[in-house]
């Protein structure tokens, strides 16, 4: 039995773990946000507020409907994708798993261009195209979260249920569903938040009817100097996003007894699912093919000139890629460490709600966050040398919710009775904790590190504020190309986009391998 002392020990360990993410959020999240809100509300040069509560509500309703539709569609396509990718074995499974994530990683403007280039004018710009873009980008979220839950499902339970006479549907509903439901809810709440606060995709796929609070804040700040309006929209966004995250976090944990498969058993793929895989595969290869075509078709003939010059010129892609890679790795380490510490605390149900503080970066609009970083860290008293640190911190902050969600969902799949058993056998609190959660914690952290590093490669919002001028990040370099007229610009941008995707996929794949290895290690 757990003695009072051990219980106290376990809790103090978790409180200790929680203190780091809390300090991180306070120092790097709350401080810049408070600074910028303070300045927005108190600035004497601001234009008079031009929006009323009714405008804000109308805009929120429009963006809300868009986000709900986007989420429903992303889940509808994402679930079967997750099912087939996680529980079936087929040639190219790993590649497809990595490909699905690429649109999520690329700067959204680039994904938008690839989609527009592919679809042409078949779908007019506006809500329809925005929904399509959002689904395309966010299937990755569903596949990651639900796929991970499915992989931990022990298929033997299903087989047993069916051998006892349950139908396929019944066995899935009673055994599969309770396990994946929390992952679906969690993924859906994240997708909703991303679509509700979308910006880059709208600039390419949207029209004037598809606005979000993000795009409105940017307009108010940069064009109209309506700072109070921007603050009002920022608050409104916090309310909606906060509510979505709260609902997403309320979902009950899966009953651990159902899970526990250490390495997933995969079924051979049937004909129907093969066709589905081909369709999904084509959907994700097509934008790449388009980008590739842009990069090698020069004046209607085939040429690798753009590839050669981009990788070998003075301000070469190679130098920028190496720097970006290092930067991304730092972001992966910082975000997954802080995320893992919050996830440790989250295993204690009383601390869980506090650990969710690390989701807060999703609440802020990117324009306010960028300005906040600029105002807080570019001048006294917290002036920073603008080498690398501010960008690593800012990007880590942005990806922290993903790191946390990834690790927590991995740990939720653990049967925590192991901890009780270990402790009753005399293990110390932390020893018992690691016996139960250690492998999943480390494997989740590695998986999160890869995902965060990959996202950091393509992150543009913070990078456009904090990137080093002389050697920009890959995403900034890419977006600079897209600002230059001429037929060559899209070609060079495509070279960079493909290179960026390849690097991100390597990071993702590498860390995923480590993560799988960590999970299999027996102690």
């Amino acid at each position, binding site marked *: 039995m757990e003695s009072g002392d051990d219980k106290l020990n376990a809790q103090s360990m978790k409180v200790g773990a929680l203190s780091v993410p809390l*300090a991180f959020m306070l120092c790097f999240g709350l401080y810049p946000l408070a600074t910028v809100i303070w300045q927005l509300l108190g600035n004497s040069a601001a234009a008079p507020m031009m929006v009323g509560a009714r405008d804000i509500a109308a805009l929120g309703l429009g963006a809300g409907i868009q986000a709900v539709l986007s989420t429903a569609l992303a889940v509808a396509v994402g679930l079967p994708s997750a099912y087939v990718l996680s529980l079936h074995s087929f040639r190219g499974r790993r590649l497809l798993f990595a490909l699905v994530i690429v649109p999520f990683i690329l700067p959204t403007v680039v994904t938008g261009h690839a989609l527009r280039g592919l679809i042409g004018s078949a779908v007019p710009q506006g809500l329809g195209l925005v929904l399509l873009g959002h689904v395309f980008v966010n299937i990755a979220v569903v596949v990651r979260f639900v796929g991970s839950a499915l992989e931990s499902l022990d298929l033997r339970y299903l087989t047993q249920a069916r051998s006892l006479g349950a139908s396929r549907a019944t066995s899935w509903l009673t055994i599969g569903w309770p396990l994946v439901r929390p992952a679906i809810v969690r993924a859906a709440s994240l997708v909703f938040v991303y679509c509700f606060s979308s910006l880059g995709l709208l600039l390419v796929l949207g029209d004037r009817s598809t606005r979000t609070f993000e795009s409105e804040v940017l307009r108010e700040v940069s064009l109209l100097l309506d700072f109070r309006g921007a603050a009002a929209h920022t608050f409104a966004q916090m309310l909606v996003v906060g509510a979505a995250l709260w609902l997403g976090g309320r979902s009950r944990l899966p009953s651990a007894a159902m899970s526990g498969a250490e390495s997933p058993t995969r079924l051979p793929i049937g004909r129907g699912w093969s066709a589905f895989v081909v369709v999904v595969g084509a959907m994700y290869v097509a934008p790449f093919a388009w980008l590739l075509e842009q990069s090698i078709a020069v004046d209607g003939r085939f040429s690798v000139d753009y590839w050669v010059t981009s990788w070998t010129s003075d301000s070469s892609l190679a130098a920028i890629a190496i720097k970006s890679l290092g930067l991304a790795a730092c972001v992966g380490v910082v975000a997954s460490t802080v995320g893992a510490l919050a996830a440790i605390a989250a295993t204690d149900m009383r601390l869980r709600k506090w650990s969710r503080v690390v989701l807060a970066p999703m609440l802020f609009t990117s324009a306010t966050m960028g*300005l906040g970083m600029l105002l807080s860290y570019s001048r006294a008293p917290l002036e920073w040398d603008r080498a690398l640190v501010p960008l690593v911190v800012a990007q880590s902050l942005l990806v922290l919710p993903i790191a946390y969600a990834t690790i927590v969902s991995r740990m939720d799949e653990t049967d925590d009775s192991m901890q009780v058993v270990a402790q009753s056998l005399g293990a110390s609190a932390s020893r018992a904790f690691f016996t139960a959660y250690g492998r999943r914690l480390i494997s989740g952290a590695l998986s999160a590190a890869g995902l965060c590093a990959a996202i950091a490669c393509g992150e543009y919002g913070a990078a456009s504020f904090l990137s080093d001028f002389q050697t920009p990040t890959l995403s900034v370099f890419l977006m600079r190309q897209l600002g230059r007229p001429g037929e060559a610009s899209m070609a060079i941008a495509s070279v960079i986009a493909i290179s960026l995707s390849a690097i991100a996929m390597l990071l993702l794949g590498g860390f995923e391998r480590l993560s799988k290895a960590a999970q299999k290690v027996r102690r």
Partner: protein
Amino acid sequence: MKNFLRFIVGMAAVSLLAACGNTATPSAGGDVTIKLLAHESFVVSDKVLAEFKKETGITVEVVTAGDAGTMVAGAVLAAGNPTADVLFGIDNTLMPNALRGDGIFEEYSSPALADVRDDVQQWTETRVVTPIDYADVCVNVDMKWFAQSGLPVPASIDVLTLPEYKNLLVIEDPAASSPGLAFLLAVHARMGADGEAWWSALKNNGVKVAASWSDAYFNDFTGGGGAGKYPMVVSYATSPVAEYVYAAEPKPTAVSTAVVTEGCFRQIEYAGVLRGTEHPAEARKVVDWMVSKKFQDEVATNMFVFPALKTATIPDEFTKFSGVVSRPGVLPTNDIESAIPTLLEQWNRVMTS
């Protein structure tokens, strides 16, 4: 495992402290570093930076902060306690934002102002900014398309509402894009009170509105390399130059886009010393340097704009391929601030009706 956890917590705490404590120490005497706040399109060569450092001992650290509008908004929020010493890249349409309240600039304009072109002197009467470069926002046309169709290339924007030019023009949303806003002002400068009727006619003539310049140019414009369907796009008079410069070797002898030179808006970009800088003397030197011949000689090649300095060298490809705008649209200085919100609202009303 307990040790492992301690290790993780310890490492995280140390790195956090290190990060928090890693604050830049302001340089005491000797060589000074001046922070130059610029928008994301700013380019300067390492060579010119190094020469300036050699001559003056001043290191210029470039700090980019999003697009021009966001950068100015950041400077307004930090007015008096600035995040940098000098700002570059505010344009004539954003100047009212910089002058609100106590303003973001200290009073300083370079003595070199006398050598700056007369037609880019707008706002210099405020004595807080110095013009560095200018560029005209104009309608660009795809010459290949026009040659094939046999349709005459329009000489001015006035004819764009005629039925033969139906469904041929793509513009950018003025509320979301800087060239889009400039074009709105070009129309206002040219047509004044008749502007609203012109926009209404343009809408009925099938004008396409894109949300951003890159979307309009690469996806909708027939000359942008994509599968666009519109042979006319709102872009810059220097866009054909960029097309030539970025073209693959061997360079073409002619470019495929041309510029409609009647109905343009002139964007002038300025530099100024930010109010509250700790190094006003050195900051002024940086502004002087930006309008000096050495800096101005490479402005065109670096940023596809024209130098403000009369004596600056303009590269051959600019004289050869750029549209020559002899009568750019200009709005009276005291008209800009009130005009923009009114025009945006009017445009929105026309386009959604």
